[in-house]
């Protein structure tokens, strides 16, 4: 690959790093681990997005924002944005920076850093309160305001909070 192509590809990743998750604007879609790959062929860029949850209503917005951001990169004439479920998006794809930003945003990051086993999904996990840092918390509901969030209560600071579900 020529240095030009490498430079363009790096510029695309930079542009993608500026695209926020519409429901969690503090975190970029790159930090969410939603970009599977970027393919360059001439002036055409193909970006493959992995939806966090199948039914996520933010997907059309993300596709539009990705197309706009990548089209602005110099040397790109055409952008194709595809979604894929292969591999399935899993919560261990969220970067360290993404986890820190989720917590600053007030959303507990999913527990565990490795891939979650299918048999472990949905079991109550220990979530750390994003407000006071306590792990003395209780899962109130495995479901929440969006498909990707669960509801918790912090026994220490007595705040309800949400966790990005491990999946």
């Amino acid at each position: 690959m020529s240095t030009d192509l490498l430079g363009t590809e790096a510029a695309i990743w930079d542009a993608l790093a500026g695209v926020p998750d519409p429901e969690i604007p503090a975190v970029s879609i790159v930090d969410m681990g939603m970009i599977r790959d970027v393919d360059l062929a001439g002036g055409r860029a193909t970006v493959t997005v992995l939806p966090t949850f199948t039914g996520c209503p933010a997907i059309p917005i993300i596709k539009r924002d990705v197309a706009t951001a990548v089209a602005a990169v110099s040397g790109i004439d055409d952008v194709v944005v595809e979604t894929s479920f292969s591999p399935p998006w899993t919560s261990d794809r969220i970067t360290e920076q993404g986890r820190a930003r989720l917590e600053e945003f007030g959303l507990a990051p999913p527990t565990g850093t490795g891939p979650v086993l299918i048999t472990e999904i949905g079991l109550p996990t220990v979530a750390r309160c994003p407000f006071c840092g306590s792990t003395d918390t209780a899962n109130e509901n495995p479901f929440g305001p969006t498909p990707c969030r669960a509801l918790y209560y912090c026994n220490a600071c007595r705040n309800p909070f949400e966790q990005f579900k491990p999946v």
Partner: protein
Amino acid sequence: MSDAALVSLVTALADDELVLGHRHSEWTGFAPHLEEDVAFSSIAQDEIGHAAAYYSLVANLTDDDPDRLALGREPAEYRNAIFCERPNREWAFTLVRHWLYDTADALRLEALEQSAHPELAALATKIRREERYHLIHADSWIKRVARGPVEGRTRLADATASAFPETIGLFEPFEDEEAAVKHGWLPVPSDELRRRFYDKVNPMLDELGLPTETHPHAAARAEFVASSSGDLISEGSGETSDAEGADDALGGRRGRHTPDLDALWTEMTTQYRSHPGARW
């Protein structure tokens, strides 16, 4: 068309999820407590999202539009099991149907992860991970009510007696199933999935003291009452008539539905029909 069997398989999956998702959404604002209002709304959104992904797969195969597939067909074109179109009735029926459906769906998805169609296999892998939350939610509720006070247990037993026999509709072979099995698109035939399902749920129903009668009218006519030990026993006439059978629950995969689907369809498709081509 060579893909007809694949279209038929994925349409059945999509229609089950859409129709039951719509039933679950009817609890939004009406569930017996707030956390369950949130839970059922979220479960409904998941199921309808899964349906959307399945319809997109079908639309790619047939050069169609996923919205038209979801909302622009006549009731007789839907291939969902009759089990999914039944009204919610009451909380106990909703819970037991949720549990039976998600247990069956988990087995189906586990099989589809090995599908010879790569896109369907990937989708099943993703959906199965999300569905784990539904199954654990349903499991915990069934156990909680089945081991709780007698009124709840009685209602759950009644609901199980009418819901369980109708699960057979989930395993009714869909059109061209033999071809789908031959191509490896559906790695495990419906018959075998049904056996796996009974192997899974029967011991659990027994353990919880819930009826395992698969003949629809035998158990439904019986009345469950608490014995002195606290166990539920079925009283009254358990007589059955061969004229009425589980046949009532079959036909969905061939487009033969009950008036329950007509009522649901009318509401579900109102926006689509009154504002053709509308975009959000």
